[in-house]
């Protein structure tokens, strides 16, 4: 505190100047809000040198980036004039949607087909003309059933669903596409159900959800804090001052984000609420001490000075430890988590500065409040019972903890890794319903692209390569979760079957070349180049996955890598992977790798900070105890309930350690201060009641604040919110049970009254 004393002294010696300076700074920081941007995609989340990322980029460079909007038409049977006409109309209207590549719309209305007829080959679109009679409808059904590229991919086997897919140009505006496609869906809905989904739609939903969340959360959180402060202090300044401080902290932090170019993401979306919880907990400790000391001082500046002296150091320590805890997120290689680490650190430091300047400055201008500080009798009774129980039943407490922790460690092993993008949304979300319908009725909406290098074979037209590719695709189809695979092999086989009749024999090199030539003659360049590279040395296999579980994708990816050499013995690195699931696989890997490092680093940072503060190894280890125990319990609970460790929940450790350590620091600082004046047993009881009350208010405000996140439209944010709220409750209980039990045991073991 020595370094900061002259600065902090200004707050109560020159309160008006301090407030003016804070007001000016608030105006300046609020200017950064205008520059605040939202980033809703996961592109750029991975490090550039990551091998999976490099593969994705390589696949993009050869085959282009394809963001696909999917429109599903679901009805009893799509083989009716009304439904067929809608397929045609929607396909035509989609072509006019801004940013849609009009020659890359795939539907029954656009796709060319080759079918064998008695008189020769029928070529043309499935719906070039609406079938005029029953025979024509039966012919259309037969053509679709006989085309493996269409059945289960564009049309469900039960005839109830068909998909219209549109590729978007690079650099498309998600909002424009979303609005236009939603309008189309509304226009054509009824009696058929029109579904819209696909990554661009879901990403836009995330963006809109983020904006909606932010608008909803901040007011709710502030109202909750209002109520919380009123319950805690029962005085108007006790409500208004902390709320003012909270609002300033949010403005400063979000302004910093704007100036620093750090965008709002699905992760940093939670920041305002976290700031409400954290900043209010600093304010609670300050105001608690302020009201407690009020009867000892007659002037505002004297009371403000005394409050700062009593509580300034613990608040500074907790601010620093929270900031350092958040900084531990920098160990992740995932961009939005790293960004959150920076934002959190800066935010917590700013909140500390505001707490230690704004609150004493205003308090210095106020007359000291009359009367005793409010104490909740019920809370006091609860804290007393908890302390007595912990002190009196130390063995039972120890046994219960051992039991709990063994269970927690077991269930931590069951925690599933990685985010399922679809499950960001609640079950009632239209994009999720659509994607799940497509998964159930078609071959799946998640895709893995596998680019196979045919250079060692002399190109994709080589029959040996074709044989290998054929075997490889058959191997992929053996996986239950693979709904469909699509490559130039399927085009060649379809043409071969129609020109030669069904045969088991694979075509030779010249046949392959000529069938591909035929495909070129009927397909658009977009369709052709989605399957083959310009030089015909690379083939792209699109693998449609029915499962949306990232761990299933990861296992499949590992299997394919292991087995690829069996099919493609020529060349060293025949496969490159792309597609939307690859991003998630890489993110999952980094989350696991980063999570372990993050836990170790966060605990280490907090431990070292406590070592500097307490200058004692046992005290520093003690400070880690409640948060470590709570961490194990929370992660164990995630394993029990089945909450995934994903990009949002990965923040938990940093938040639990960074924020949770506050309780430990306040408790230990209070205890050792009391211990200087009274015997150990009395110090434990006194501290548990007095510091314990502030910690209880702190925990309650955190729980209330974090609970707001449960109202989010995104399940990971909801999970993050209530898990964090639960963590705060656990840390509070663990602090209030473990410390009295341990300190009592320690004091009784040691003959000396000194601990440390």
């Amino acid at each position: 505190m020595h370094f900061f004393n002259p600065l902090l002294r200004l707050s109560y010696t020159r309160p008006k100047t301090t407030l003016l300076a804070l007001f000016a700074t608030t105006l300046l920081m609020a200017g950064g809000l205008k520059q605040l941007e939202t980033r809703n995609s996961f592109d750029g989340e991975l490090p550039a040198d990551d091998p999976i990322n490099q593969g994705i980029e390589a696949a993009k460079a050869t085959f282009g980036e394809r963001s696909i909007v999917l429109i599903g038409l679901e009805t009893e049977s799509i083989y009716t004039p009304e439904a067929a006409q809608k397929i045609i109309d929607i396909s035509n209207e989609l072509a006019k949607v801004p940013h849609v590549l009009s020659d890359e719309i795939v539907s029954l209305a656009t796709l060319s087909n080759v079918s064998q007829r008695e008189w020769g080959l029928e070529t043309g679109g499935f719906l070039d003309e609406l079938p005029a009679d029953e025979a024509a409808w039966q012919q259309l059904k037969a053509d679709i059933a006989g085309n493996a590229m269409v059945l289960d991919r564009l049309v469900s086997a039960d005839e109830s669903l068909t998909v219209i897919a549109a590729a978007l140009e690079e650099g498309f505006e998600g909002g424009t596409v979303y609005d236009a496609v939603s309008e189309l869906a509304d226009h054509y809905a009824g009696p058929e159900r029109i579904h819209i989904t696909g990554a661009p739609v879901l990403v836009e939903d995330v963006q809109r959800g983020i904006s909606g969340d932010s608008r909803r959360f901040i007011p709710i959180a502030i109202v909750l804090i209002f109520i919380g402060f009123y319950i805690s202090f029962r005085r108007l300044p006790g409500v208004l001052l902390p709320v003012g401080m909270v609002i300033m902290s949010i403005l400063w932090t979000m302004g910093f984000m704007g100036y620093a170019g750090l965008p709002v993401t699905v992760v940093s979306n939670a920041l305002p609420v976290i700031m409400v919880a954290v900043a209010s907990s600093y304010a609670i400790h300050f105001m608690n001490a302020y009201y407690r000391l009020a009867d000892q001082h007659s002037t505002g500046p004297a009371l403000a000075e005394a409050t700062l002296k009593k509580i300034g150091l613990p608040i500074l320590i907790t601010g620093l430890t929270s900031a350092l805890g958040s900084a531990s997120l920098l160990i992740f290689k995932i961009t939005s988590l790293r960004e959150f680490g920076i934002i959190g650190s800066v935010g917590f430091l700013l909140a500390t500065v505001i707490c230690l300047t704004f609150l004493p400055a205003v308090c210095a201008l106020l007359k000291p409040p009359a009367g005793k500080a409010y104490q909740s009798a019920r809370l006091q009774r609860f804290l007393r019972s908890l302390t007595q129980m912990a002190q009196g039943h130390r063995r039972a407490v120890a046994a219960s903890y051992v039991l709990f922790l063994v269970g927690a460690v077991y269930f931590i092993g069951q925690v599933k890794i990685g985010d399922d993008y679809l499950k960001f949304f609640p079950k009632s979300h239209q994009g999720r319903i659509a994607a799940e319908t497509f998964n159930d009725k078609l071959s799946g909406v998640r895709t893995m692209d596998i680019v196979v290098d045919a250079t060692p074979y002399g190109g994709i037209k080589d029959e040996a390569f074709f044989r290998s590719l054929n075997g490889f695709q058959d191997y992929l189809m053996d996986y239950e979760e693979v709904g469909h695979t699509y490559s130039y092999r399927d085009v060649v086989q379809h043409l071969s079957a129609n020109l030669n009749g069904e045969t088991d024999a694979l075509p030779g090199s010249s046949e392959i070349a000529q069938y591909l030539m035929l495909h070129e003659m009927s397909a658009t360049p977009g369709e052709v180049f989605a399957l083959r590279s310009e030089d015909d040395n690379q083939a792209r296999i699109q693998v449609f996955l029915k499962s949306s579980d990232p761990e299933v994708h990861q296992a499949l990816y590992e299997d394919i890598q292991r087995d690829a050499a069996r099919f493609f013995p020529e060349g060293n690195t025949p496969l490159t992977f792309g597609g939307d699931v690859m991003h998630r696989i890489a993110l999952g890997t980094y989350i696991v790798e980063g999570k372990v490092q993050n836990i170790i680093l966060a605990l280490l940072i907090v431990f070292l900070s406590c070592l500097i503060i307490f200058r004692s190894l046992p005290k520093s280890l003690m400070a880690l105890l409640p948060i470590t125990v709570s961490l194990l319990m929370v992660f164990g609970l995630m394993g029990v309930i089945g909450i995934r460790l994903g990009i949002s929940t990965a923040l938990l450790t940093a938040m639990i350690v960074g924020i949770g350590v506050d309780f430990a620091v306040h408790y230990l600082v209070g205890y050792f201060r009391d211990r200087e004046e009274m015997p150990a047993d009395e110090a434990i009881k006194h501290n548990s009641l007095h510091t314990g009350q502030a910690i209880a208010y702190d925990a309650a405000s955190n729980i209330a604040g974090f609970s707001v996140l449960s109202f989010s439209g995104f399940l990971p944010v909801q999970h993050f919110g209530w898990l964090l709220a639960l963590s705060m409750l656990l840390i509070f209980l663990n602090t209030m049970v473990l410390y009295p039990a341990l300190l009592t045991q320690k004091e009784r073991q040691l003959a000396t009254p000194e601990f440390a």
Partner: protein
Amino acid sequence: MILAFTLVVTLFSTTVLPDASAIMEAHRKATAVQDLTGQLTYTNISKSGRKQTRTLQQYILRTDKGDYTYNLLLEFTDPQDVAGTATLTIQQERKDDEQWLYLPALRMSKRISPSKKSDRFMGTEITYEDLSGHLSEPIDDYQYTLLGEETINGRPAYKLEALPREGLRTQYGKRLLWIDKATHLMAQTHFFGHKGEHLKTYTATDIRPVGSGGHHRAHQIKMENVQTGNTTKVQYSGFAINAGVDAAMFSTTWMETR
């Protein structure tokens, strides 16, 4: 007096333009041939810049089934692995064309369903309707209006608007034509959809005489699809016009036995 005379001559020469029908009739005559052979290399270029190049030999022979209907044989010569692949089209006056496909790998020809006007020719940005118009502009089906004169690629050209006559089934609601003044060949065309949207732009360059019969041909053409961003470029060489083509070539037997 001299000044007045000059003024009258100038006014006369700038305001009295040929009739639109006369220009289009001259255009049809300029493109009409009894037979034509030549090599063409086309390159399809996707919006993202990916290219695909094929070379083929074309044989065209006017039929006796209508004034301006043709038999068209196209045989791929490059790349080698598709050499010999051929398509045969027999145009019919006011009827669907007949089409056959020959794949050397199958050693037999297959009849294929007639292409629709809007189908893409050989996967290029040129549709069968465009191709038909390229061989012979269907002047009875359109109403032409002369809009003026402009210079296209350094050559003076008549600018005309072509609107389909009522009842005509076409993919285009309007075309703007630029007819080269010197040769009456099509120098440029803008194709518009039925809602007035600009669909494609055709440009012909390197217009040179072919043979000694007074014929000219553009040796390079380009079709840009404004909607999709895809382009097809065609390079012609070895034109021979009215030099005689064996009618027996335009049969499935010829494709299968040559």
